[in-house]
């Protein structure tokens, strides 16, 4: 039975929402998750790349949701030179459909409840105070009361708006994406590939993330303000026609990734925003799975503590903000400044960058070396990058 009142209602059962639900429930709160789609994780709107170190704190590795293990990253410049990075740690290409469901199962194991096909419509307020959520389920509008809403509704981030938080992102801070899953390829299963350049993918990159030695997620993200005349699909089609002329497209998907810094406001009285909804994505890589899980774990714990103490105001919930900034938020800010730099990089600069990387022995070539070279000539940014590497190790995905 679904109760009429929960301590916490989580809207959205992606990685951020389900991890928040799990940590809140594990710490004693009663939790309800509402998910609009018929199943968590579908439709998949993701290249599915993560680092091993990023996910192990949250779930035991299970072959069921791992398509392939990645050991090598290959970066290719506009003039078709490639550099290989070997020592960035183990990564995986996931089966997110199964992964997202596994995270929900874990939340349920700790006592959280999930309703699928439940579309949140609005927040219920009493004298401006959030006291619950209105949602649509099986053709009927229902209400559920709660003390805290955790908004984990992904890129759209409408729930935050209902609470008066400005979640709009600027055009240049959204990557507009298309991805195909391709079959019939001849590729290396342990290597993910990245292609850069203003002709290939303005303000973003093309990726090849192998799911086996004959299938891969092949996609593109381009900066929103550069996508009007020629859209991401046209760029991707050109790339695929050249690189994989004989491939079969088995899946086509469109999507958007916020690439800003974290929102100014991620808590208000009785509400917290997590994951893509809070814009907690690595602005350079566009990776948001691990970021969302980290934010979800912090938010879930703080929310459970709020329940125990009966304190639901922004002042108390800001604990989550503080902890997030310390963990990743401050680093994300630096990455965002770096992304701005990437946005205006000429092809020649990309060529030089990959040329430089090629000269570093591949076992010494790391993200730090890459970023340090990329921000050369901007002393303030160099300092910030150096600091952020000391404060927290930047993870690729």
């Amino acid at each position: 039975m679904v109760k009429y009142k929960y301590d916490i209602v989580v809207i959205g059962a992606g990685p951020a929402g389900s991890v928040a639900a799990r940590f809140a429930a594990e710490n004693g709160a009663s939790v309800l998750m509402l998910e609009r789609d018929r199943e968590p994780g579908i439709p998949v709107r993701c290249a599915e790349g993560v680092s091993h170190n990023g996910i192990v704190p949250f779930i035991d590795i299970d072959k069921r949701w791992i398509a392939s293990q990645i050991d090598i990253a290959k970066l290719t410049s506009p003039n078709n030179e490639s550099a290989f990075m070997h020592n960035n740690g183990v990564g995986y290409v996931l089966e997110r459909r199964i992964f997202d469901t596994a995270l929900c199962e874990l939340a349920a194991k700790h006592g959280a409840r999930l309703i699928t096909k439940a579309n949140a419509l609005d927040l219920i307020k009493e004298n401006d105070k959030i006291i619950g959520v209105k949602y649509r389920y099986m053709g009927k509008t229902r209400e559920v009361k709660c003390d805290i809403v955790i908004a984990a509704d992904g890129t759209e981030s409408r729930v935050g708006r209902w609470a008066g938080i400005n979640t709009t992102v600027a055009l240049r801070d959204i990557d507009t994406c298309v991805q195909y899953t391709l079959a019939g390829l001849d590729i290396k299963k342990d290597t993910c590939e990245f292609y850069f350049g203003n002709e290939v993918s303005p303000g973003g990159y093309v990726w090849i993330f192998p799911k086996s030695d004959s299938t891969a997620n092949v996609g593109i993200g381009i900066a929103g303000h550069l996508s009007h005349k020629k859209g991401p699909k046209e760029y991707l089609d050109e790339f695929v026609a050249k690189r994989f002329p004989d491939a079969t497209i088995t899946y086509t998907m469109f999507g958007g990734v916020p690439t800003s810094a974290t929102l100014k406001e991620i808590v208000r009285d009785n509400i917290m925003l997590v994951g893509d909804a809070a814009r907690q994505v690595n602005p350079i890589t566009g990776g948001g799975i691990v970021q969302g899980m980290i934010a979800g774990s912090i938010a879930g714990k703080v929310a459970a503590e709020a329940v125990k103490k009966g304190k639901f105001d922004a002042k108390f919930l800001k604990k989550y903000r503080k902890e997030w900034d310390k963990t990743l938020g401050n680093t994300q800010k630096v990455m965002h400044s770096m992304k701005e730099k990437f946005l205006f990089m000429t092809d020649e600069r990309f060529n030089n960058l990959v040329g430089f990387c090629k000269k570093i022995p591949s076992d010494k070539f790391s993200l730090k070396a890459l970023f340090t070279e990329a921000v050369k000539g901007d002393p303030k940014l160099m300092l910030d990058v150096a600091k952020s590497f000391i404060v927290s190790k930047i993870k690729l995905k």
Partner: protein
Amino acid sequence: MKVISELCDICGTCVAVCPVDAIIVTEFKVKIDNDICTNCMNCLKVCPAKAIEEGE
């Protein structure tokens, strides 16, 4: 602004850049409320599926 349902993938990208929250999403459909829309064209510019056009 108008969403061409046949092209729309319900990905939510347009919603993220709409400054006035004029775009409504359900599991099956995306709709623009033209009473709220200010015709800023943000959504049209970023839609990866080119599923938004001018008009009501």
